[in-house]
Protein backbone atom coordinates (compact mmCIF):
# COMPACT_ATOMS: atom_id res chain seq x y z
CA UNK A 1 0.00 0.00 0.00
CA UNK A 2 1.59 3.30 -0.98
CA UNK A 3 0.42 6.76 -1.92
CA UNK A 4 1.22 6.43 -5.61
CA UNK A 5 -0.94 3.36 -5.97
CA UNK A 6 -3.83 4.92 -4.09
CA UNK A 7 -3.49 8.06 -6.21
CA UNK A 8 -3.57 5.98 -9.38
CA UNK A 9 -6.75 4.26 -8.23
CA UNK A 10 -8.54 7.51 -7.43
CA UNK A 11 -7.46 8.94 -10.79
CA UNK A 12 -9.08 5.98 -12.50
CA UNK A 13 -12.30 6.38 -10.52
CA UNK A 14 -12.72 10.15 -10.34
CA UNK A 15 -13.57 11.34 -13.81
CA UNK A 16 -12.70 15.00 -14.17
CA UNK A 17 -10.45 15.14 -11.10
CA UNK A 18 -6.94 16.55 -11.54
CA UNK A 19 -3.89 17.20 -9.31
CA UNK A 20 -4.77 14.31 -7.00
CA UNK A 21 -2.66 14.25 -3.84
CA UNK A 22 -2.58 11.80 -0.95
CA UNK A 23 -1.48 13.76 2.11
CA UNK A 24 -2.08 10.94 4.59
CA UNK A 25 -1.95 7.17 4.32
CA UNK A 26 -1.87 5.44 7.66
CA UNK A 27 -2.95 2.05 8.86
CA UNK A 28 -4.93 2.03 12.09
CA UNK A 29 -4.62 -0.62 14.77
CA UNK A 30 -7.57 -2.82 15.65
CA UNK A 31 -9.75 -4.97 13.45
CA UNK A 32 -8.71 -8.54 13.06
CA UNK A 33 -10.67 -9.06 9.83
CA UNK A 34 -9.77 -6.41 7.25
CA UNK A 35 -6.98 -3.83 7.23
CA UNK A 36 -8.19 -0.29 7.82
CA UNK A 37 -6.27 2.59 6.24
CA UNK A 38 -6.88 6.30 6.89
CA UNK A 39 -6.52 8.31 3.71
CA UNK A 40 -6.58 12.08 3.23
CA UNK A 41 -7.07 12.78 -0.46
CA UNK A 42 -7.47 16.05 -2.27
CA UNK A 43 -7.98 17.00 -5.88
CA UNK A 44 -9.22 19.73 -8.16
CA UNK A 45 -12.67 19.35 -9.66
CA UNK A 46 -14.57 22.02 -11.60
CA UNK A 47 -11.91 24.51 -10.57
CA UNK A 48 -12.43 23.83 -6.88
CA UNK A 49 -10.03 22.09 -4.51
CA UNK A 50 -11.78 19.12 -2.85
CA UNK A 51 -10.49 17.59 0.39
CA UNK A 52 -11.89 14.16 1.16
CA UNK A 53 -11.13 12.04 4.22
CA UNK A 54 -11.51 8.38 3.23
CA UNK A 55 -11.18 4.90 4.64
CA UNK A 56 -9.79 2.02 2.62
CA UNK A 57 -10.67 -1.42 3.98
CA UNK A 58 -8.47 -4.04 2.38
CA UNK A 59 -8.62 -7.81 2.71
CA UNK A 60 -5.70 -9.14 4.76
CA UNK A 61 -3.62 -12.16 3.78
CA UNK A 62 -5.44 -14.28 6.38
CA UNK A 63 -8.38 -13.27 8.51
CA UNK A 64 -10.62 -14.26 11.40
CA UNK A 65 -13.71 -14.15 9.19
CA UNK A 66 -14.00 -15.25 5.59
CA UNK A 67 -16.89 -13.17 4.29
CA UNK A 68 -18.36 -11.96 1.04
CA UNK A 69 -17.15 -8.41 0.63
CA UNK A 70 -19.71 -7.67 -2.07
CA UNK A 71 -22.46 -8.57 0.38
CA UNK A 72 -20.98 -6.19 2.93
CA UNK A 73 -20.69 -3.41 0.37
CA UNK A 74 -24.28 -3.77 -0.82
CA UNK A 75 -25.66 -4.06 2.73
CA UNK A 76 -23.85 -0.88 3.76
CA UNK A 77 -25.15 0.95 0.72
CA UNK A 78 -28.68 -0.18 1.66
CA UNK A 79 -28.19 0.62 5.34
CA UNK A 80 -27.46 4.21 4.37
CA UNK A 81 -31.17 4.52 3.60
CA UNK A 82 -32.21 3.49 7.11
CA UNK A 83 -32.01 6.09 9.87
CA UNK A 84 -28.81 4.70 11.33
CA UNK A 85 -25.38 6.29 10.95
CA UNK A 86 -23.23 4.36 8.50
CA UNK A 87 -20.42 5.55 6.23
CA UNK A 88 -21.20 6.33 2.60
CA UNK A 89 -19.71 3.66 0.38
CA UNK A 90 -17.85 4.78 -2.72
CA UNK A 91 -16.20 1.82 -4.44
CA UNK A 92 -15.74 -1.89 -4.11
CA UNK A 93 -12.62 -3.02 -5.97
CA UNK A 94 -11.97 -6.72 -6.49
CA UNK A 95 -9.20 -6.45 -9.09
CA UNK A 96 -5.88 -7.12 -7.28
CA UNK A 97 -3.88 -5.02 -9.78
CA UNK A 98 -4.52 -1.86 -7.75
CA UNK A 99 -3.60 -2.73 -4.15
CA UNK A 100 -2.75 -6.46 -4.34
CA UNK A 101 -5.98 -7.55 -2.62
CA UNK A 102 -9.66 -6.55 -2.86
CA UNK A 103 -10.69 -3.42 -0.98
CA UNK A 104 -13.52 -0.98 -0.33
CA UNK A 105 -13.39 2.80 -0.25
CA UNK A 106 -15.80 4.69 1.99
CA UNK A 107 -16.17 8.05 3.63
CA UNK A 108 -14.34 8.55 6.90
CA UNK A 109 -16.52 9.55 9.79
CA UNK A 110 -15.21 11.26 12.91
CA UNK A 111 -15.25 9.28 16.08
CA UNK A 112 -13.36 6.72 18.05
CA UNK A 113 -14.14 3.08 18.54
CA UNK A 114 -13.92 1.58 22.00
CA UNK A 115 -11.30 -1.19 22.07
CA UNK A 116 -13.95 -3.82 22.84
CA UNK A 117 -16.59 -2.29 25.11
CA UNK A 118 -17.20 1.24 26.27
CA UNK A 119 -14.39 2.10 28.70
CA UNK A 120 -15.44 2.14 32.37
CA UNK A 121 -13.98 5.62 32.86
CA UNK A 122 -16.45 7.16 30.40
CA UNK A 123 -18.78 9.55 32.23
CA UNK A 124 -22.27 8.40 33.16
CA UNK A 125 -24.13 10.90 30.94
CA UNK A 126 -22.19 9.79 27.86
CA UNK A 127 -22.69 6.15 28.71
CA UNK A 128 -26.46 6.63 29.05
CA UNK A 129 -26.75 8.60 25.82
CA UNK A 130 -24.72 6.10 23.83
CA UNK A 131 -26.64 3.22 25.39
CA UNK A 132 -29.93 4.78 24.31
CA UNK A 133 -28.67 5.29 20.77
CA UNK A 134 -27.20 1.78 20.71
CA UNK A 135 -30.56 0.08 21.37
CA UNK A 136 -32.50 2.56 19.25
CA UNK A 137 -30.31 1.97 16.19
CA UNK A 138 -30.56 -1.80 16.64
CA UNK A 139 -34.34 -1.47 16.75
CA UNK A 140 -34.19 0.65 13.55
CA UNK A 141 -32.12 -1.98 11.77
CA UNK A 142 -34.60 -4.70 12.73
CA UNK A 143 -37.66 -2.64 11.77
CA UNK A 144 -36.21 -1.72 8.37
CA UNK A 145 -38.09 -3.00 5.32
CA UNK A 146 -35.33 -5.16 3.87
CA UNK A 147 -37.39 -5.99 0.81
CA UNK A 148 -37.77 -2.33 -0.06
CA UNK A 149 -34.03 -1.86 0.53
CA UNK A 150 -33.29 -4.48 -2.12
CA UNK A 151 -31.77 -6.92 0.34
CA UNK A 152 -33.80 -9.97 -0.64
CA UNK A 153 -30.64 -11.17 -2.42
CA UNK A 154 -29.28 -12.09 1.02
CA UNK A 155 -31.76 -14.97 1.06
CA UNK A 156 -34.61 -14.87 3.55
CA UNK A 157 -34.99 -18.04 5.63
CA UNK A 158 -38.41 -19.67 5.55
CA UNK A 159 -40.39 -19.30 8.74
CA UNK A 160 -40.12 -21.95 11.41
CA UNK A 161 -36.68 -23.20 12.38
CA UNK A 162 -34.90 -22.14 9.18
CA UNK A 163 -33.26 -18.97 10.54
CA UNK A 164 -31.72 -20.71 13.54
CA UNK A 165 -30.83 -23.85 11.63
CA UNK A 166 -29.09 -21.88 8.85
CA UNK A 167 -26.86 -20.09 11.33
CA UNK A 168 -26.19 -23.20 13.38
CA UNK A 169 -25.22 -25.21 10.30
CA UNK A 170 -22.95 -22.42 9.08
CA UNK A 171 -21.03 -22.10 12.34
CA UNK A 172 -20.85 -25.88 12.85
CA UNK A 173 -19.41 -26.24 9.35
CA UNK A 174 -16.93 -23.46 10.08
CA UNK A 175 -15.90 -25.09 13.37
CA UNK A 176 -15.07 -28.36 11.64
CA UNK A 177 -13.30 -26.50 8.84
CA UNK A 178 -11.02 -24.39 11.04
CA UNK A 179 -10.46 -26.36 14.22
CA UNK A 180 -6.84 -27.29 14.85
CA UNK A 181 -7.73 -29.56 17.76
CA UNK A 182 -10.87 -30.91 19.36
CA UNK A 183 -12.73 -28.58 21.71
CA UNK A 184 -15.01 -30.81 23.82
CA UNK A 185 -16.92 -27.82 25.26
CA UNK A 186 -17.71 -26.47 21.79
CA UNK A 187 -18.65 -29.94 20.54
CA UNK A 188 -21.04 -30.33 23.49
CA UNK A 189 -22.54 -26.90 22.84
CA UNK A 190 -23.09 -27.69 19.16
CA UNK A 191 -24.88 -30.89 20.10
CA UNK A 192 -27.11 -28.96 22.53
CA UNK A 193 -27.90 -26.35 19.89
CA UNK A 194 -28.84 -29.01 17.34
CA UNK A 195 -31.38 -30.45 19.76
CA UNK A 196 -32.88 -27.07 20.80
CA UNK A 197 -33.47 -25.22 17.52
CA UNK A 198 -36.21 -22.61 18.06
CA UNK A 199 -38.75 -21.48 15.47
CA UNK A 200 -39.13 -17.78 14.74
CA UNK A 201 -41.68 -15.67 12.92
CA UNK A 202 -40.14 -12.27 12.04
CA UNK A 203 -37.33 -12.16 9.51
CA UNK A 204 -35.23 -9.01 9.83
CA UNK A 205 -31.92 -7.58 8.66
CA UNK A 206 -29.40 -8.93 11.16
CA UNK A 207 -26.13 -7.01 11.59
CA UNK A 208 -24.52 -10.12 13.14
CA UNK A 209 -21.69 -8.24 14.88
CA UNK A 210 -23.61 -5.46 16.60
CA UNK A 211 -21.49 -4.38 19.57
CA UNK A 212 -19.86 -1.34 21.07
CA UNK A 213 -16.50 -2.20 19.53
CA UNK A 214 -18.06 -1.75 16.08
CA UNK A 215 -19.44 1.74 16.59
CA UNK A 216 -17.70 5.09 16.47
CA UNK A 217 -18.63 7.76 18.93
CA UNK A 218 -17.77 11.41 19.19
CA UNK A 219 -18.88 14.16 21.56
CA UNK A 220 -21.08 11.71 23.43
CA UNK A 221 -22.97 10.29 20.44
CA UNK A 222 -22.68 7.34 18.11
CA UNK A 223 -21.44 8.60 14.76
CA UNK A 224 -21.17 5.35 12.80
CA UNK A 225 -22.07 1.68 12.92
CA UNK A 226 -19.37 -0.38 11.23
CA UNK A 227 -18.39 -3.92 10.29
CA UNK A 228 -21.46 -5.26 8.52
CA UNK A 229 -19.53 -8.11 6.88
CA UNK A 230 -21.57 -10.87 8.50
CA UNK A 231 -24.98 -9.23 7.90
CA UNK A 232 -27.80 -11.49 6.73
CA UNK A 233 -31.56 -11.97 7.03
CA UNK A 234 -32.70 -13.85 10.09
CA UNK A 235 -33.94 -13.77 13.67
CA UNK A 236 -33.66 -10.44 15.54
CA UNK A 237 -32.84 -12.34 18.73
CA UNK A 238 -29.48 -13.20 17.18
CA UNK A 239 -28.36 -9.55 17.32
CA UNK A 240 -29.79 -8.93 20.77
CA UNK A 241 -28.12 -12.06 22.13
CA UNK A 242 -24.76 -10.93 20.72
CA UNK A 243 -25.20 -7.57 22.42
CA UNK A 244 -26.00 -9.03 25.86
CA UNK A 245 -23.60 -11.98 25.69
CA UNK A 246 -21.44 -12.51 28.78
CA UNK A 247 -18.29 -12.23 26.67
CA UNK A 248 -19.03 -8.57 25.92
CA UNK A 249 -20.03 -7.76 29.50
CA UNK A 250 -17.72 -5.91 31.85
CA UNK A 251 -18.42 -4.61 35.34
CA UNK A 252 -21.96 -5.96 35.05
CA UNK A 253 -22.65 -3.82 31.96
CA UNK A 254 -23.35 -5.37 28.57
CA UNK A 255 -21.01 -3.69 26.07
CA UNK A 256 -19.91 -1.47 28.96
CA UNK A 257 -23.27 0.28 28.48
CA UNK A 258 -26.21 -1.20 30.39
CA UNK A 259 -27.10 -4.02 32.75
CA UNK A 260 -28.57 -6.95 30.85
CA UNK A 261 -32.22 -6.42 31.84
CA UNK A 262 -32.03 -2.75 30.94
CA UNK A 263 -30.42 -3.50 27.57
CA UNK A 264 -33.22 -5.95 26.73
CA UNK A 265 -35.98 -3.62 27.96
CA UNK A 266 -34.35 -0.65 26.25
CA UNK A 267 -34.33 -2.49 22.93
CA UNK A 268 -38.02 -3.35 23.24
CA UNK A 269 -38.98 0.17 24.37
CA UNK A 270 -37.04 1.67 21.46
CA UNK A 271 -39.31 -0.19 19.06
CA UNK A 272 -37.37 -3.41 18.72
CA UNK A 273 -38.98 -6.74 17.95
CA UNK A 274 -40.71 -8.60 20.81
CA UNK A 275 -38.11 -10.37 22.94
CA UNK A 276 -38.40 -14.14 23.32
CA UNK A 277 -36.14 -15.30 26.16
CA UNK A 278 -35.91 -18.89 24.95
CA UNK A 279 -34.72 -17.83 21.50
CA UNK A 280 -32.43 -15.29 23.14
CA UNK A 281 -30.79 -18.07 25.20
CA UNK A 282 -30.31 -20.22 22.09
CA UNK A 283 -28.57 -17.36 20.30
CA UNK A 284 -26.39 -16.56 23.32
CA UNK A 285 -25.13 -20.14 23.27
CA UNK A 286 -24.68 -19.96 19.50
CA UNK A 287 -23.00 -16.56 19.93
CA UNK A 288 -20.39 -18.00 22.28
CA UNK A 289 -19.69 -20.83 19.81
CA UNK A 290 -19.53 -18.33 16.94
CA UNK A 291 -17.04 -16.11 18.76
CA UNK A 292 -14.92 -19.13 19.61
CA UNK A 293 -14.92 -20.22 15.95
CA UNK A 294 -14.00 -16.69 14.86
CA UNK A 295 -11.09 -16.77 17.32
CA UNK A 296 -9.96 -20.20 16.13
CA UNK A 297 -10.05 -18.97 12.51
CA UNK A 298 -7.55 -16.29 13.46
CA UNK A 299 -5.36 -18.80 15.27
CA UNK A 300 -5.44 -21.08 12.21
CA UNK A 301 -4.17 -18.30 9.97
CA UNK A 302 -1.36 -17.64 12.46
CA UNK A 303 -0.40 -21.31 12.84
CA UNK A 304 -0.38 -21.79 9.07
CA UNK A 305 1.80 -18.72 8.55
CA UNK A 306 -0.78 -16.85 6.47
CA UNK A 307 -0.94 -14.05 8.99
CA UNK A 308 1.96 -13.55 11.38
CA UNK A 309 0.47 -10.65 13.34
CA UNK A 310 0.67 -11.57 17.04
CA UNK A 311 -2.95 -10.53 17.65
CA UNK A 312 -3.99 -13.60 15.62
CA UNK A 313 -2.30 -15.81 18.22
CA UNK A 314 -3.72 -13.83 21.11
CA UNK A 315 -7.34 -14.16 19.94
CA UNK A 316 -7.08 -17.90 20.61
CA UNK A 317 -6.70 -17.14 24.29
CA UNK A 318 -10.28 -15.88 24.33
CA UNK A 319 -11.63 -19.38 23.72
CA UNK A 320 -11.42 -20.56 27.37
CA UNK A 321 -13.41 -17.47 28.44
CA UNK A 322 -16.15 -18.35 25.99
CA UNK A 323 -16.07 -21.97 27.08
CA UNK A 324 -16.49 -20.92 30.72
CA UNK A 325 -19.73 -19.18 29.74
CA UNK A 326 -20.92 -22.30 27.87
CA UNK A 327 -20.05 -24.58 30.79
CA UNK A 328 -22.15 -22.37 33.08
CA UNK A 329 -25.06 -21.92 30.65
CA UNK A 330 -25.36 -25.59 29.72
CA UNK A 331 -24.48 -26.94 33.19
CA UNK A 332 -21.77 -29.16 31.71
Amino acid at each position, binding site marked *: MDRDRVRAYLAARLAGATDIEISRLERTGGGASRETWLVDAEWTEHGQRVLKPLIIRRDPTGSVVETDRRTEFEVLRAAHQIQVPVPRMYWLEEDPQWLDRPFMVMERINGMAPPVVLPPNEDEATRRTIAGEFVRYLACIHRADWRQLGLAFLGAPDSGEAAARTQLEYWEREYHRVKLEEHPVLATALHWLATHVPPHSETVLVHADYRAGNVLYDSGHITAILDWEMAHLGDPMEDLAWAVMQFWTTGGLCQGLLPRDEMIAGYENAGGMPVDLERLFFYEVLGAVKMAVISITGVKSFCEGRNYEPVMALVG*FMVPRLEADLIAKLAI
Partner: protein
Amino acid sequence: MRPGATELLSGIKDIIFNIFVPELQSEQARAQAMYSSVLIEHLIARWEIEMPLLLEERAELRGLLTQALAVVAGDLGPRVREALAGSENAGGGPKAIDAENERMRTLVPAIHRTLPAKSDEPQTMELDAAIRAYIRNQHRRDKAFVQVGELTW
Protein backbone atom coordinates in the same frame (compact mmCIF):
# COMPACT_ATOMS: atom_id res chain seq x y z
CA MET B 1 23.28 -25.60 29.95
CA ARG B 2 22.87 -21.84 30.42
CA PRO B 3 21.36 -19.65 29.22
CA GLY B 4 18.25 -21.81 29.49
CA ALA B 5 15.16 -21.55 27.28
CA THR B 6 13.30 -19.05 29.46
CA GLU B 7 16.44 -16.93 29.90
CA LEU B 8 16.84 -16.78 26.13
CA LEU B 9 13.24 -15.76 25.71
CA SER B 10 13.63 -13.02 28.32
CA GLY B 11 16.64 -11.76 26.45
CA ILE B 12 14.74 -11.64 23.16
CA LYS B 13 11.98 -9.67 24.87
CA ASP B 14 14.54 -7.19 26.17
CA ILE B 15 16.06 -6.83 22.70
CA ILE B 16 12.65 -6.01 21.25
CA PHE B 17 11.97 -3.35 23.84
CA ASN B 18 15.35 -1.80 24.29
CA ILE B 19 16.71 -1.95 20.74
CA PHE B 20 13.88 -2.41 18.24
CA VAL B 21 11.05 -0.33 19.71
CA PRO B 22 13.02 2.94 20.04
CA GLU B 23 13.80 2.71 16.31
CA LEU B 24 10.19 2.10 15.23
CA GLN B 25 8.42 5.02 13.58
CA SER B 26 4.83 3.90 13.15
CA GLU B 27 2.11 3.25 15.70
CA GLN B 28 1.31 -0.01 13.93
CA ALA B 29 4.87 -1.32 14.26
CA ARG B 30 5.03 -0.35 17.94
CA ALA B 31 1.69 -2.12 18.56
CA GLN B 32 2.99 -5.29 16.90
CA ALA B 33 6.14 -5.13 19.01
CA MET B 34 4.04 -4.85 22.16
CA TYR B 35 1.90 -7.85 21.16
CA SER B 36 5.04 -9.85 20.38
CA SER B 37 6.41 -9.07 23.81
CA VAL B 38 3.15 -10.27 25.41
CA LEU B 39 3.43 -13.55 23.49
CA ILE B 40 7.01 -14.04 24.66
CA GLU B 41 6.00 -13.34 28.28
CA HIS B 42 3.28 -15.96 27.90
CA LEU B 43 5.74 -18.45 26.46
CA ILE B 44 8.16 -18.00 29.37
CA ALA B 45 5.42 -18.80 31.88
CA ARG B 46 3.96 -21.61 29.74
CA TRP B 47 7.33 -23.34 29.52
CA GLU B 48 7.03 -24.61 33.08
CA ILE B 49 3.42 -25.77 33.09
CA GLU B 50 2.87 -27.25 29.65
CA MET B 51 4.29 -30.75 30.15
CA PRO B 52 2.65 -31.44 33.54
CA LEU B 53 -0.73 -30.36 32.15
CA LEU B 54 -0.39 -32.52 29.05
CA LEU B 55 0.55 -35.53 31.14
CA GLU B 56 -2.36 -34.87 33.50
CA GLU B 57 -4.75 -34.74 30.53
CA ARG B 58 -3.28 -37.92 29.09
CA ALA B 59 -3.87 -39.81 32.33
CA GLU B 60 -7.44 -38.58 32.55
CA LEU B 61 -8.20 -39.41 28.91
CA ARG B 62 -6.79 -42.91 29.27
CA GLY B 63 -8.98 -43.50 32.30
CA LEU B 64 -12.02 -42.11 30.50
CA LEU B 65 -11.54 -44.16 27.35
CA THR B 66 -10.89 -47.32 29.33
CA GLN B 67 -14.17 -46.71 31.14
CA ALA B 68 -15.93 -46.08 27.80
CA LEU B 69 -14.88 -49.48 26.43
CA ALA B 70 -17.47 -51.13 28.68
CA VAL B 71 -20.27 -48.94 27.32
CA VAL B 72 -19.67 -48.01 23.67
CA ALA B 73 -20.83 -50.13 20.79
CA GLY B 74 -20.34 -50.35 17.02
CA ASP B 75 -17.21 -48.96 15.41
CA LEU B 76 -16.41 -46.73 18.37
CA GLY B 77 -14.99 -49.66 20.36
CA PRO B 78 -12.11 -50.38 17.94
CA ARG B 79 -11.37 -46.66 17.59
CA VAL B 80 -11.15 -46.30 21.37
CA ARG B 81 -8.89 -49.35 21.63
CA GLU B 82 -6.65 -48.01 18.88
CA ALA B 83 -6.34 -44.60 20.55
CA LEU B 84 -5.53 -46.22 23.90
CA ALA B 85 -2.87 -48.43 22.33
CA GLY B 86 -1.29 -45.41 20.65
CA SER B 87 -1.02 -43.40 23.83
CA GLU B 88 0.38 -46.22 25.95
CA ASN B 89 3.96 -45.79 24.81
CA ALA B 90 3.78 -42.18 23.66
CA GLY B 91 6.90 -40.32 24.63
CA GLY B 92 8.76 -37.34 23.40
CA GLY B 93 8.15 -33.68 23.99
CA PRO B 94 4.98 -31.63 24.37
CA LYS B 95 4.11 -31.77 20.69
CA ALA B 96 4.15 -35.58 20.58
CA ILE B 97 2.17 -35.94 23.82
CA ASP B 98 -0.39 -33.38 22.61
CA ALA B 99 -0.79 -35.28 19.32
CA GLU B 100 -1.56 -38.49 21.20
CA ASN B 101 -3.93 -36.64 23.51
CA GLU B 102 -5.69 -35.20 20.47
CA ARG B 103 -6.30 -38.72 19.09
CA MET B 104 -8.08 -39.54 22.34
CA ARG B 105 -9.69 -36.10 22.70
CA THR B 106 -11.48 -36.36 19.34
CA LEU B 107 -13.32 -39.45 20.56
CA VAL B 108 -14.85 -37.76 23.61
CA PRO B 109 -17.67 -35.90 21.80
CA ALA B 110 -18.47 -38.98 19.71
CA ILE B 111 -18.70 -41.12 22.85
CA HIS B 112 -20.80 -38.50 24.65
CA ARG B 113 -23.29 -38.30 21.79
CA THR B 114 -23.94 -42.04 21.92
CA LEU B 115 -25.09 -41.87 25.53
CA PRO B 116 -28.86 -41.53 26.03
CA ALA B 117 -29.99 -38.15 27.35
CA LYS B 118 -31.41 -39.82 30.45
CA SER B 119 -30.35 -43.19 31.78
CA ASP B 120 -30.62 -45.13 35.04
CA GLU B 121 -27.96 -47.59 33.98
CA PRO B 122 -25.02 -47.11 36.44
CA GLN B 123 -22.18 -47.59 33.92
CA THR B 124 -23.76 -45.07 31.54
CA MET B 125 -24.37 -42.55 34.31
CA GLU B 126 -20.79 -42.91 35.55
CA LEU B 127 -19.39 -42.49 32.05
CA ASP B 128 -21.51 -39.38 31.49
CA ALA B 129 -20.24 -37.93 34.78
CA ALA B 130 -16.64 -38.79 33.88
CA ILE B 131 -16.98 -37.09 30.48
CA ARG B 132 -18.43 -33.95 32.05
CA ALA B 133 -15.64 -33.95 34.64
CA TYR B 134 -13.04 -34.31 31.87
CA ILE B 135 -14.60 -31.40 29.94
CA ARG B 136 -14.46 -29.19 33.02
CA ASN B 137 -10.92 -30.27 33.88
CA GLN B 138 -9.73 -29.69 30.32
CA HIS B 139 -11.22 -26.24 30.43
CA ARG B 140 -9.32 -25.63 33.68
CA ARG B 141 -6.10 -26.74 32.02
CA ASP B 142 -6.69 -24.53 28.98
CA LYS B 143 -7.41 -21.60 31.27
CA ALA B 144 -4.09 -22.19 33.01
CA PHE B 145 -2.31 -21.65 29.68
CA VAL B 146 -4.20 -18.45 29.04
CA GLN B 147 -3.81 -16.96 32.48
CA VAL B 148 -0.02 -17.21 32.68
CA GLY B 149 2.12 -14.34 31.54
CA GLU B 150 -0.42 -11.77 32.80
CA LEU B 151 -2.66 -12.09 29.77
CA THR B 152 -5.89 -10.25 30.31
CA TRP B 153 -8.77 -9.51 28.02
